[in-house]
C-alpha cells in the first residue's frame, strides 16, 4: 500500500514538475501575446491600457469560460451529466422562447453537433463544417475561444471577429436601419449612445444561418438590439434582445454577458475550405464512415 502510494505520489509529482516547466517557458499565458512577434521584438508597455473612457469600446474582448462552461447562445445552462467522458463543451442546453410552426420546422431541420440534439458532425448540417458564414449573433459565441475587437472610427464602429477574419460594420453617422433590405449574412447595423451605453440595432439577416450552435432558428424578420456598456478598463457588458415574430412567439432576452479585455492581439484565423475539407475527410466524415476514398 505504502509502495503504491509512493509510486502514485512520484508520478503526480513528475507530471506537476513537467507542467510547471511548460508554464515557465511559454509566454502566451502572461502578458501580451501578439502571435507572430516574440516579446522582445515589441515596444515596451504595449499592453498598458489607455485611460478609461466609457465611450471608447476599443480593445480585444473575450468571453470568459467560467468553470469550463462555454456560452453558446442567448442563454444556455450547463447540463448535469454524470458521464465524465462527455466533454465540457457538450454539457449545455439553450432555452429559447416558444417557436412558431415556421420556427419549429426550421429547428427540426437543423442537425447540430452541440447540445442534447447532437449528431456526429459528419451526419449533421451545420454550416460551420464547410466554412460557410455563421452570421451574427452566432459569430459572437465564438468569443469563448476566438476573441473579437472593437475599432472606433468617426462614423462607424467596427467589430472585428477573429474567426473568418470578419468585420461587422455598425454605422454611427446618424442613418436609420434600412426599411426593406436584401438579406445579408451579417445583417445591417446602426449604433447610438444613450448615456454611457452603446445601443446597436440590427436587421436584414439571411435566414440560412442558425442563431447558435444548438441549431436555434431565426428568420429574415429578426431584429436584434444589443446594449454594450464598458464597465471599466477590463470589462464590457452586453445585454441582447432578439425579436423575431416569424420564428418565435415572444422576444428572446439574453442573459447579460460580461466580456473581459485580453492582452492578446487578434490572430489570423481563416476558415480555408481546403483545410476544412481535409479535416472533414480525416475526422468528421471518417468518424461516421462517409469519408471519400
Amino acid at each position, binding site marked *: 500500500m505504502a509502495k503504491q502510494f509512493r509510486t*502514485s505520489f512520484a*508520478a503526480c509529482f513528475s*507530471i*506537476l514538475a*513537467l*507542467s510547471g*516547466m*511548460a*508554464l515557465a*517557458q*511559454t*509566454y*502566451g*499565458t502572461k502578458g501580451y*501575446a501578439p*502571435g507572430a512577434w516574440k516579446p522582445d521584438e515589441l515596444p515596451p508597455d504595449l499592453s498598458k491600457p489607455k485611460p478609461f473612457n466609457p465611450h471608447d469600446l476599443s480593445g480585444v474582448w*473575450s468571453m*470568459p469560460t467560467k468553470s*469550463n462552461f462555454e456560452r453558446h447562445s442567448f442563454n444556455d445552462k450547463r447540463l448535469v*451529466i454524470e458521464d*465524465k*467522458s*462527455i*466533454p*465540457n*463543451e*457538450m*454539457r449545455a442546453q439553450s432555452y429559447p422562447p416558444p417557436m412558431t410552426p415556421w420556427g419549429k420546422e426550421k429547428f427540426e431541420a437543423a442537425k447540430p*453537433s*452541440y447540445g*442534447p*440534439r*447532437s*449528431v*456526429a*458532425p*459528419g451526419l449533421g448540417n*451545420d454550416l*460551420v463544417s464547410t466554412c460557410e458564414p455563421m452570421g451574427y449573433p452566432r459569430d459572437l459565441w465564438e468569443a469563448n*475561444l*476566438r*476573441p473579437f475587437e472593437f475599432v472606433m472610427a468617426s462614423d462607424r464602429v467596427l467589430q472585428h471577429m*477573429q474567426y473568418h477574419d470578419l468585420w461587422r460594420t455598425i454605422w454611427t453617422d446618424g442613418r436609420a436601419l434600412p426599411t426593406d433590405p436584401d438579406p445579408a449574412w451579417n445583417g445591417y447595423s446602426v449604433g447610438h449612445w444613450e448615456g454611457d451605453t452603446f445601443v446597436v440595432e440590427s436587421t436584414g439577416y439571411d435566414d440560412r444561418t442558425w442563431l447558435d*450552435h444548438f441549431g436555434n432558428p431565426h428568420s429574415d424578420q429578426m431584429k436584434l438590439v444589443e446594449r454594450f456598456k464598458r464597465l471599466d478598463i477590463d470589462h464590457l457588458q452586453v445585454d441582447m434582445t432578439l425579436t423575431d415574430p416569424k420564428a418565435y412567439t415572444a422576444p428572446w432576452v439574453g442573459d447579460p454577458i460580461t466580456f*473581459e479585455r*485580453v492582452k*492578446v492581439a487578434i*490572430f*489570423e*484565423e481563416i*476558415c*480555408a475550405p481546403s*483545410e*476544412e475539407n481535409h*479535416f472533414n475527410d*480525416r*475526422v*468528421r466524415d471518417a*468518424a*461516421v464512415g462517409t469519408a471519400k476514398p
Partner: protein
Amino acid sequence: MRRNFPVTRAVNLSLLVVSALLLAIPLFAHHGFQFEFDGSKYIYITGTLTKVEWENPHIYFNVESKTSPDNPTAAAADGKITNWRFEGSSVSLVQRTGTRRADLVDYIGKTVTVRACPGKGDLAKGAAETVKLPDDREVVVGRKRYYGTGPVPADIDKDPVN
C-alpha cells in the same frame, strides 16, 4: 391481465434498450471529439516526430514510436514501430499558449513525448495536449482534452485565451 405481462416486459425492455442507445448517442463534440477519442484516459507516447501539419481547424503531427496502440503504456515487445497521428487545437489557440510552428517543425526527426487522450478502438492516434521536446521544454499543442477523474497535470485548466 397476467397474460399481458410478457408484452409489457418486452415493451419495457425495448424502451430500456432504445433509451440506452439514445443516451449513448446524444453528445458529440463539435469536431467529433467524443466519437473519436477517449477523454477519460491519458497516454504518453515517446518517439520520433516525423511530420507536422500546421493548419485549421486542428493542427496534426505524426510520431513514430515503439509503443503499440494495443498497449499504449508499454513499448512494443517486438520493437515494431507504429506511426501515431495526433491532432491538436486550432492554430490560433495553439499560438496563444505561446507555442509556435517552429517549436514542432524544428524538431522533426528528433525524439519527443506526447501527452494525449487516446483514440477509440485501439487506433494509433490521439488528441494531444502537450509535446515534450528534446530541450526539455513542454509545449502546449491542444486545449484541455482530458475529462477523467484521475490526477491531472497543473497546466490542464490553463485558459488558452489569457
